[in-house]
């Protein structure tokens, strides 16, 4: 039952909180929480090839990721999802290649090249700014922190914990290399960092 709950909750890709699990599924079995969670994790792994990861040890929230190697998980994916992943990987690539942290205006300036503008309705993404600064953040793909002592406020963008779990610097470097038709070693410092 917990397994089903987790699978359904995972649809939005927002981390699942322990509190929700207790309230909706476990009810009387509160004391057995750890047992049940680890059992569920085992079932997810064996039956679905999914890994249940605690992404926030303080809040006890969890996400599901695939434990199968990337190329093999050739599962059907809806267009909307694909498009968002496309945007996401571009952002993650930019952040990594630029040294793991970028300022918000640097990112949005870059996205302009791709016809994506904050504050404008995008044909495909709608409110892009909301997608990037809210949805991706809630899903733990991105981490946005305000830079102190700056007025007007500016923010720095970094990889979120989910990004670090679902992909890797090496994978992203390979993506960039593929797009640009170059060997990943072309970018020596990033390559060094990615394969360290």
């Amino acid at each position, binding site marked *: 039952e917990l397994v089903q709950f987790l699978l359904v909750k995972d649809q939005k890709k927002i981390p699942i909180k322990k509190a929700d699990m207790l309230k909706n599924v476990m009810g009387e079995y509160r004391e057995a929480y750890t047992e049940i969670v680890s059992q569920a994790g085992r079932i997810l792994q064996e039956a679905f090839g999914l890994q249940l990861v605690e992404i926030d040890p303080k809040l006890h929230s969890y996400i599901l990721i695939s434990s199968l190697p990337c190329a093999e998980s050739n599962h059907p994916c809806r267009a909307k999802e*694909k498009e968002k992943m496309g945007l996401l*990987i571009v952002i993650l690539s930019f952040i990594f290649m630029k040294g793991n942290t970028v300022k918000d205006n640097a990112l949005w300036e870059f996205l302009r090249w791709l016809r994506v503008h904050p504050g404008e309705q995008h044909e495909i993404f709608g409110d892009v700014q909301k997608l990037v600064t809210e949805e991706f953040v809630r899903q733990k793909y991105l981490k946005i922190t305000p830079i102190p002592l700056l007025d007007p406020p500016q923010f720095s963008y970094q990889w979120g914990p989910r990004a670090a779990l679902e992909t890797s610097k090496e994978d992203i470097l390979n993506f960039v290399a593929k797009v640009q038709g170059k060997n990943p070693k072309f*970018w020596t410092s990033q390559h060094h960092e990615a394969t360290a």
Partner: protein
Amino acid sequence: NREEILSSKSNRLTEALEEANKLFEKVCRAREAALDAQFLVLASNLGKEKANELHSEMTSFDSATFAEDLLTLMGINRTEIEENDSEPGGFLPRDAWQKVGEEALKYFRRAPTFHYMLGSFKSDPPEAKQRIERQKKASRGEAKQIMPAQLKKMEESHEEATEKEVERILGILQTLFENDPDTPISFFDFVIDPNSFARTVENMFHVSFLIRDGLAEIRLDDDKLPIIEPTKSRKGVEENQGPGARKQVVMSLTQEEWK
């Protein structure tokens, strides 16, 4: 001093390092080595900051080229006309971002989004019973929706439907009789539906209720064929008081006979 070192044009840091190197060769006491180590830590921190300041020159990553290459991946149709704004000319196809996304998925270990394969149950409203020609019922809309989970409800509405049908048939019988009070109706004419055996059986079923409740009567006419007529109210009352002439008749009707 720090500012000076950080300024990118300055070689101060390098100079300081070189000096430290020379000094280290002369070192023979531990304390001096510790100082040297301290200095190195400081120097490396400064070096890191300096490197950060240099941004793209250090990483040799050119975002403009990256963007261009991404657009190519998206399948942009480049136009010949030069645009005035900073965006290069060109037309992005509808599936531009899908193309990127398709490639992107190969680099993520994303749990596939879980969707139910089958929808939840819905049942059709009960089939409209076939109407006997002369009567039309506007209340077809009353036919109830049945929720499968609620078996109780289903049974209820079945019962009600039967009652309704019985009432309806009574109504028809009475109407027919009104039009022609002295002629009872041939039972078979009344119940048989020329198009459907099943309906015929249903009709008989409903008529049997009427008989049971004393609302109609079946008699045999001179030809020994059953006829049916609604009981006149007086008579009905009387019958209820008496022992009640109740007969049970098993009517058999096979499909053959029906034909």
